[in-house]
């Protein structure tokens, strides 16, 4: 039986990746006649090979790619030989498109890494090797290309092979093979070449046909993430998913996480029938002996070997977006079929892809790889990526733009969530607030410096105090003198500043107080995060909407003047953005309304 090998081609720009794939397809007779004639036509128009056929154009299917003569996005091609089927992902070499290269690598068994014989091992060679290693690709074939341009010199080949081996030694690949080729002339691609009597190994295609890639997932314990609950009628309840690892048979005891519910497998339902067993890779519907409460995002696992659960992870992360990954900012995480809120609590280090050394980093920028600590808002069932890829891989999504900004792989749990239960206390928020005869609230004042937040907060507290309410004001400047005095004004520090205040406000609301927060809090994501800590109806976002010109005119602390002179950096409204709330509970025009009136409006709206 033919199996399928998935491989990617990667390497630096102009190393000849697309040409190599075109050549593989051509030599293995997988290009149709009409495609070849279209290719011949295109070659004269866009090609880089003069009158000859430019195989790169077979792969570079986008107009922009043909016009710029580069590969921008990953292309998937399919071909077969009598011995094996192949899915090949042709990935871009340009550094700015590294994320597209990672997309191709995430599902590959083998990486065919091209090296230009004239240039040897380059930064992109190292970068791509590190990325494929991190993504768990276990086999590398190094195709040393353009050997015809160095007269098939064995010494050149041996030197590059030795250089690459030094790099590979640090990356933990299972196999590394080095093959001299010329994609342009077709030498040593499908069969050995007379030009290299000194080379005794296989040509590229025979090498790929013979490469053994074993996936150990059948010997691991059974796991399946629930994708969909199938309930056509009250008598049928099936849990749909694709088996991530292991084997399951009817009658097996299973444990559903995170609930920890144990039950037995009654049946495995497939199209118009049932089967007695399922293994890794199968898409099935499972029915259990007892009715259990489970849904999308839960993991069905062997009861003998339940799946781990945690809300704190150490992970490798690749930044995929021009928006930096920042510690403290809440992102959406998608881990198998779970979606939750996750925050990078610390960037431990960035990995320098050229040398593999660890560098200190405050943020991760586009194409950076780093090791981070990740905190999730609830405990999720998972496996380390190195054990079961599909239960350890995740993506991070920006809450506002919905952009995929990071791809990550769980290395291990920092602590088992089981060891850190929430301490249940006998007295709760309702009891504590009841004693004070009030409903606890958080009134969050946001706006530019000088907009009048502190004046309003001060007056509001006096009014509430006079009415016998228990209150507290958290003021931006005051908090920065104590709790947050270790923080500066970079984007990352501002996010941490808000996170701490939001957490303190939450504790105070839990204590039964009415908390007035008076912070510039310029970013929507952090205000939304603050809101997410509270119950519905507890949190009031009040936008103190005073125009920048008016704030600057008032300039009570002389800060605008300093910022304009350039002696104060990252000042909101001047050289750091303020993102106004889209739908605040209340908007105050403090430039035209008196502080007294503003306070009245707040009291009328929330605290009658």
């Amino acid at each position, binding site marked *: 039986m033919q199996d399928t090998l998935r491989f990617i081609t990667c390497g630096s720009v102009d190393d000849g990746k697309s040409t190599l794939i075109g050549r593989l397809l051509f030599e293995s007779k997988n290009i149709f006649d009409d495609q070849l004639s279209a290719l011949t036509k295109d070659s004269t128009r866009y090609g880089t090979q003069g009158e000859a056929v430019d195989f790169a154009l077979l792969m570079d299917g986008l107009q*922009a790619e043909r016009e710029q003569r580069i590969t921008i*996005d990953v292309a998937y091609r399919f071909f077969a030989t009598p011995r094996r089927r192949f899915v090949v992902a042709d990935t871009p070499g340009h550094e700015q498109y590294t994320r597209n290269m990672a997309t191709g690598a995430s599902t590959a068994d083998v990486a065919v890494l091209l090296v230009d014989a004239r240039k040897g091992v380059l930064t992109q060679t190292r970068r791509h090797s590190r990325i494929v290693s991190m993504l768990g690709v276990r086999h590398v074939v190094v195709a040393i290309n353009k050997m015809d341009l160095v007269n098939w010199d064995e010494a050149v080949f041996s030197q590059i092979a030795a250089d690459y081996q030094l790099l590979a030694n640090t990356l933990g690949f299972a196999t590394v093979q080095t093959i001299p080729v010329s994609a342009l002339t077709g030498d040593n691609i499908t069969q050995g070449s007379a030009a290299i009597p000194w080379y005794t190994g296989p040509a590229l295609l025979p090498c790929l046909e013979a490469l053994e890639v074993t996936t150990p997932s059948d010997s691991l314990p059974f796991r399946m993430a629930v994708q*969909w609950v199938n309930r056509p009628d009250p008598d049928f309840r099936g849990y749909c*998913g694709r088996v991530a690892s292991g084997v399951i048979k009817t009658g097996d005891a299973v444990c559903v996480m995170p609930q920890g519910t144990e039950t037995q497998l009654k049946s495995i339902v*497939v199209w118009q029938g049932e089967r007695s067993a399922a293994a890794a890779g199968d*898409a099935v519907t499972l029915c259990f002996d007892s009715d259990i409460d489970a849904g999308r995002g839960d993991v069905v696992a062997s009861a003998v070997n339940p799946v781990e659960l945690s809300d704190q992870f150490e992970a490798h992360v690749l930044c995929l977006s021009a928006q930096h990954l920042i510690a403290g900012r809440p992102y959406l995480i998608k881990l198998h079929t779970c979606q939750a809120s996750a925050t990078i609590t610390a960037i431990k280090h960035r990995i320098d892809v050229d040398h593999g050394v660890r560098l200190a980093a405050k943020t991760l920028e586009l194409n950076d790889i780093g090791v981070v600590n990740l905190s999730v808002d609830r405990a999720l069932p998972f496996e380390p990526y190195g054990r079961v890829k*599909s239960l350890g891989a995740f993506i991070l*999504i920006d809450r506002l733009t919905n952009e995929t900004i990071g791809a990550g792989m769980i290395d291990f749990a920092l602590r088992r969530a089981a060891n850190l239960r929430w301490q249940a206390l006998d007295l709760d928020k309702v009891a504590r607030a009841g004693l004070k005869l009030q409903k606890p609230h958080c009134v969050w004042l946001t706006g530019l410096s000088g907009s009048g937040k502190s004046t309003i907060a001060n007056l509001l507290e006096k009014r509430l105090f006079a009415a016998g309410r228990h209150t507290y004001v958290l003021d931006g400047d005051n908090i920065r003198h104590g709790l947050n005095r270790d923080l500066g004004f970079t984007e990352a520090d501002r996010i941490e500043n808000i996170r701490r205040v939001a957490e303190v406000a939450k504790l105070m609301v839990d204590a039964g107080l009415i908390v007035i927060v008076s912070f510039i809090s310029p970013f929507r994501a952090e205000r939304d995060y603050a809101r997410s800590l509270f119950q519905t109806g507890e949190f009031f976002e009040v936008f103190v909407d005073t125009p920048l010109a008016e704030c600057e005119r008032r300039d009570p602390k002389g800060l605008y003047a300093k910022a304009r002179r350039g002696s104060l950096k990252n000042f909101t409204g001047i050289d750091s953005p303020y993102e106004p709330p889209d739908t605040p509970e209340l908007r105050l025009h403090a430039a035209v309304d008196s502080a007294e009136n503003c306070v009245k409006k707040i009291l009328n709206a929330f605290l009658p």
Partner: protein
Amino acid sequence: MNSHLDNLESESIEIIREAVATAGKPVMLYSIGKDSSVMLHLARKAFWPAPPPFPLLHIDTTWKFREMIAFRDRMAKESGFRLFVHTNQQARSNGVTPFTHGSEVYTDLMKTAALRQALDDGGYDMIFGGARRDEEKSRAKERIFSYRAAGHQWDPKAQRPELWNLYNTRLVVGETIRVFPLSNWTESDIWQYIEREQIPIVPLYFAAPRPVVRRAGQWIMVDDDRLPLNAGETPEIRMVRFRTLGCYPLTAAVESTATTLAEIIDETLAARSSERQGRLIDHDGAGSMERKKREGYF
């Protein structure tokens, strides 16, 4: 050990379930061809014993082969799907045909614009299509979950990264995602699967004596009396079949004696030309598929 068809099937079922689980209002584009037949079969498998939780949508240009329409109505009935049919009535009443307005304008109005109308009217946010990456070079570049900005435009330079089987399905109002469960299938996979699963297909795929005319080196079937015959063209009966099905004036037949699935598979494996060679609209200038896709075509 699973066969490669089992793996493809499981992958597609996973994709279909993932889309439905995260969609607000999913719909499946049904074009009546062999790929649509396979996709519909996979959708039924994915949710068995429940019926698939979404309807089928067919964009009817009014120039489909008659046998396709008969087959469509039969399949909708047998499979238990709800079927919606949409035609661009404005363009139709303006008399737009492939002959009067040329294939490009016709395709834009009767297929692409019609599709956009139907998707907007239905408020669908995730739309299944049967496109495969091996069909055409711009499709080889497309994601499985292909994000479309409001207005259905595809921006090939701003595709969402798609690592592993993790799909970013987050949308705001007006944005949509095209989902391609058959992305990794090849033409021969489709035929082998149809044979293995005994999936019903339109009889036009099997060779039979049919009335055709020779036009620009291709065999065009005279499916009804609306096809204007050029000077010197006389319909003749030839043993032909179709590798791909679309609007009959724009879809060429190939001469063939393959009357069984086994013979079709043999022919497919030995073919020296690609299946879309018979799609006349693919040859409307270089990069024409990418341009159509950017405008919202599947």
